């Protein structure tokens, strides 16, 4: 904890020094803004814009986060469905593993034009791109997690009177839940990358759009707070998912410690 705080302190100190040096050479510099410039940037992002009356941070958050969560929701639901099907049926496994392995190699941002043509440039495009981006990897993770469930547990469930649906719902899904939460948590980063990249290219609102716009104007006093905001969002999502895992799968962490 102390070392972590020390590292953050050093980082901030280093930045202050760099910014100070830069402003001695060029007092109008905005590439490494001073703390007061950063403060102005934050105010600019938070206050209503004089012309549109919109608060940038609010409209951008709304656009980006709704796209992100909707895309992730579709991707996760699809991946869980396909992953479980692949894990439970050899036929579906043989049918779906090859195409999913291939699709997992295609960067979704490279397929932007395809999504553009297929679903237009509205929210659906971002959602489709995120879903397509996370689904193959996530489906393969779910598939492997299902295969990881010891078959003795499945046999035992049957001897206890379980139906096939109950084996899937009450044994397989519960057994793989911690791994699924972990996998979803790890997909936040890639999903954010896909989304920001797409917003930079075709967006008219959202973090990616705003960062691209302001970077062109070298208005780093707004860009850096935006990046900090994204960083904190990612960090909190990570912590939140870990907390969720701890809450929902209390058995998991202890099981890992004891094994």
């Amino acid at each position, binding site marked *: 904890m102390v070392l972590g705080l020390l590292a953050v302190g050093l980082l901030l100190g280093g930045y202050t020094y760099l910014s100070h040096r830069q402003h001695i050479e060029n007092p109008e510099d905005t590439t490494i803004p001073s703390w007061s410039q950063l403060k102005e940037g934050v105010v600019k992002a938070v206050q209503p814009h004089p012309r549109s009356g919109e608060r940038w941070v609010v409209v951008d958050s709304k656009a980006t986060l709704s796209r992100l969560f909707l895309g992730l929701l579709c991707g996760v639901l699809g991946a869980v469905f396909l992953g479980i099907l692949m894990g439970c049926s050899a036929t579906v496994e043989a049918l779906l593993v090859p195409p999913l392995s291939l699709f997992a190699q295609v960067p979704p941002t490279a397929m932007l034009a395809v999504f553009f043509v297929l679903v237009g440039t509205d929210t659906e495009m971002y959602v489709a791109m995120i879903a397509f981006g996370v689904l193959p990897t996530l489906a393969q993770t779910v598939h492997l997690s299902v295969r990881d469930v010891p078959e*003795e547990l499945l046999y035992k469930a*049957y*001897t206890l*009177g379980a*139906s096939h649906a109950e084996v899937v*719902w009450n044994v397989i899904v519960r057994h793989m839940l911690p791994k699924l939460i972990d996998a979803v948590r790890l997909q936040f980063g890639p999903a954010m990358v896909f989304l920001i990249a797409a917003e930079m290219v075709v967006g008219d609102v959202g973090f990616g759009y705003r960062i691209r716009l302001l970077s062109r104007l070298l208005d780093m006093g707004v860009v850096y707070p935006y990046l900090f905001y994204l960083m904190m969002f990612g960090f909190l999502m990570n912590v939140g998912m870990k907390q969720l895992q701890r809450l929902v799968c209390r058995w998991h962490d*202890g099981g890992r410690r004891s094994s």
Partner: protein
Amino acid sequence: MNSATGTVGAAAAVQRHDIVLQCINLHHRFGAKKVLHDINLRIGRGQIVALVGPSGCGKSTLLRAIVGTHPPSEGHIAMHSGNGSGVQVVRSPGRDRGMVYQRYSLFPFLTAQQNVAFGPMLDETSIPFRTFRPFAWRQLRRRHLRAAEEMLVRVGLQDALRKYPHELSGGMCQRVAIAQAMIMRPEVMLMDEPFGALDEATREDLQRMLLSLYGENLKAKQAGEKPPYTMLLVTHELNEALYVGDRVVGLSQYWNWEDYGIRRPPGATVVYDDTAPVHGLDQVRDFERLREQRETIRRVVFDPEARTDPAEHDLFWKKVADGRAEGVLA
């Protein structure tokens, strides 16, 4: 080779007793490799049958065939229901056969109590019931949890109800696994080396627990009721087999198959089937007393040079017919 047709008396004895499980002309092979050959086995209600044999002889394969996860290549397994619903051929796993594995196989996401209550939940309710009738389900759930608690108290785990499997010792886990099987009141409990991973003291403790269950069987028999616990216990420990079981069945691939005109190794068959002395719970464990039988089993079942004729030691049902058997089939 056939444990029930050695003599007319033995066949009559089989007819007279309440048979729970029958393996009839059972063969099993993996591809071209034959593993089990012509297994015929009848287990009476209330018996604890110890199944012994050399490593790799197919004990676990036989158990899996009985569970229904690996159906036999030939022959069949029949379960005789105690509730009068007749004979059912085993084709898949079912709630009439409880399973206890060596590595416990408890559901890691459930506490000890929830693990034991899991069976009644699956058996008595369905997903739609639990989803659409939450109040009725909650009431039933309370009853299941109470029954699970009672069962855990019976196996001495009253202090571990809310602990997860990773918080329990190996012996405690195995007690939970036994309680999990027992609460379902299966026709037969199948145990695959249940104490194999435990230390000596815990193993003895659990052996005594099985003996106490056998004691309940004897009491039920004396009261004219159906003995509640029938067990098939796979073990590689001869002392355990003779101490806990009231019957020892030896499965071995070392038998005189050439004399039966068979050209290639046909796999293991039953080469030994005899009574084992019935031990009381308060009786001191005296393995010296079992030495002679242990030596016989070692020679007949485990010796790779042995070319035992399966009919030679097929004695169990003959002894039952002659009134020489102890325990529930006496």
